[in-house]
Structure formats: structure tokens, C-alpha cells
């Protein structure tokens, strides 16, 4: 089965029903390994035990951005190719991205209090991450406000592409401005600055979170396709009754 075959909603439903149990199982195993490694990892020489919060904070920050990236590609699919699954993918990714961004903000605040002495500062990284969360809320509100899914999809796609400007701002905020948030330490020129005993559990947790996102995204897309079928049948029912 090729990717273009999956572009058909009925085929996607069959694909989703087949892969979701396996994906769910692999996700559970990945989390079991990741959490085991994270709990067994040594404390950081500066952060102490609070480094354990990083195993949640960093993957959720990545996924918050990844989900908006998925929505941006889907927005192009909606606006340029008018693909039926593109807006389904975008609508499904929005609540997931919002949830992971919220988790990033919450865990960041809980890490900041013992390490920085404050839950929140208006520095560029934190503020741009908060802006991303507000953008997610805006897109979700737009989907809920416009009743016709195709009209809602176009409006949400435009907002998504405008909001994509925030992604490079988040990524490079620590380079462009003098921030309290530390600079890049995982993906950077010259290699990671994190010692392998902490880096490996972090990457395993990132894989586990990504698998969770993929699983939930496919499941949410399946729900959205079913919701649209229900909507179509209800319209047929209303027409038959009138």
C-alpha cells in the first residue's frame, strides 16, 4: 500500500484499524523503556534531580512544534491541492499539539521554580512558546466556530500558515535574544552538550512521545472521518424528513 492509496478516506480507515493496536503496543513498550532509563539516569551536576523533568519537558516541546509543522503541511494540502484528508489531518493535530504545548509550559514552570527561582519570565523562548499555545487555541476555536468543515478548513489553514512564523522564532529565540532559557543543547553544530547517560533516556522518551503523537493522530483522524460521515448522513436524514 502506497501513501497515495492512504489518501482515500475509506482506505485510511482500514489502515488505521489495522495499525492502531500495533502502534499502541509499541508506544507502551517505548514508554516503559524510556521511563525506566529516565528514572535510572544520574542527577545532573547543576540541576540535580530536577533534570528528570526534562525527560517530559523537552519531548513535549518538540511535539508541540511538530504538530504545528504537520498542520502547516496539511494547510498547504487544503489550500493548494484541496485534498480531503488534509483538513482532517490538520483538525486532528490541533488539540494534540495544544496539549503537548501546555504540558511543555507546565513542566517548564515546575522546573523553573527550583532552578530559576520563578515559575515564569517573559523571555523570548517562553513567550514564543506561550504564543504557540494561544495559536493552537485560536485554530481550535476557528474549527468550532465555522459550521461548514470546508470553509472552516480554509480559514484554519490560513491561520496555521501565518502561525508557522512562530516555529523558527521558538527554535532560534535563544540565539537571537539574550534569554534566561538555556541555549540549544541537543541538536546543535558541534554535537550535543548533554552527557550520554542523560541524552540517551531523553532521546528514548522523545521517540516514545513521538509514537504516542502518531498513534493519537491516526486515531483522531479516524474519528474525524467518521464524524464527517455522520454529518453527511444526518443532512440526508434532514432532507428526507423535509
Amino acid at each position, binding site marked *: 500500500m502506497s501513501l497515495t492509496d492512504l489518501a482515500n478516506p*475509506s482506505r485510511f480507515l482500514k489502515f488505521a484499524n489495522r495499525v492502531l493496536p500495533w502502534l499502541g503496543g509499541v508506544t507502551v513498550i517505548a514508554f516503559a523503556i524510556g521511563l525506566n532509563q529516565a528514572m535510572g539516569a544520574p542527577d545532573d551536576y547543576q540541576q540535580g534531580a530536577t533534570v528528570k523533568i526534562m525527560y517530559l519537558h523537552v519531548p513535549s516541546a518538540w511535539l508541540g512544534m511538530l504538530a504545528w509543522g504537520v498542520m502547516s503541511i496539511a494547510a498547504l494540502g487544503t489550500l493548494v491541492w484541496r485534498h480531503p484528508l488534509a483538513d482532517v489531518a490538520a483538525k486532528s493535530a490541533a488539540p494534540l499539539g495544544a496539549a503537548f504545548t501546555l504540558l511543555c509550559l507546565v513542566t517548564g514552570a515546575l522546573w523553573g521554580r527550583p532552578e530559576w527561582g520563578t515559575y515564569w519570565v517573559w523571555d523570548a523562548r517562553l513567550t514564543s512558546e506561550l504564543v504557540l499555545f494561544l495559536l493552537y487555541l485560536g485554530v481550535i476555536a476557528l474549527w468550532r466556530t465555522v459550521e461548514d468543515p470546508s470553509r472552516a478548513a480554509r480559514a484554519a489553514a490560513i491561520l496555521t500558515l501565518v502561525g508557522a512564523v512562530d516555529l523558527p522564532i521558538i527554535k532560534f529565540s535563544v540565539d537571537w535574544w539574550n534569554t534566561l532559557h538555556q541555549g540549544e543543547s541537543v541538536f546543535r553544530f558541534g554535537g550535543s552538550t548533554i552527557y550520554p547517560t542523560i541524552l540517551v533516556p531523553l532521546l528514548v522518551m522523545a521517540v516514545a512521545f513521538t509514537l504516542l503523537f502518531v498513534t493519537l493522530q491516526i486515531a483522531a483522524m479516524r474519528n474525524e472521518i467518521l464524524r464527517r460521515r455522520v454529518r453527511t448522513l444526518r443532512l440526508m436524514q434532514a432532507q428526507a424528513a423535509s
Partner: protein
Amino acid sequence: MEAINHLPFIVASYAAAVVVVGVLIAWVAIDFRAQRRALAELEMRGFARRSAAARSDTTLAQAKEQA
């Protein structure tokens, strides 16, 4: 000593993760059941998608021809 001092922040972070992930999983599972139930009810009342209806019409026509 440091670990004990910061333990509430670590526990709160993992609790927040459990809540967020739990809510997401519950939302997807509950929504799936609701959509599947609504679809089944509509199909029981005789409303089917055009492709599904077309398939059943074709099957009916073929059965009539064979008869």
C-alpha cells in the same frame, strides 16, 4: 537532600503528564465510540453513504438478474 527538596516539582510534572496524556487518550476513545454509535444508528434507520448504498443497490440488481 536536593532530591528531597525538589521532589514535589518532579512529582507534579509527572502527574501533569499523566493527566494530559490520560485526557488525550480518553478523548480519542470516547469520541470514537460516540461516532461509531451515531453511524450505526443512522445506518439502522436506512441512511447509508452513497458508495455503500450504491454497493447494496448493485448487489440487489445482480440478485434480481440472477433470479
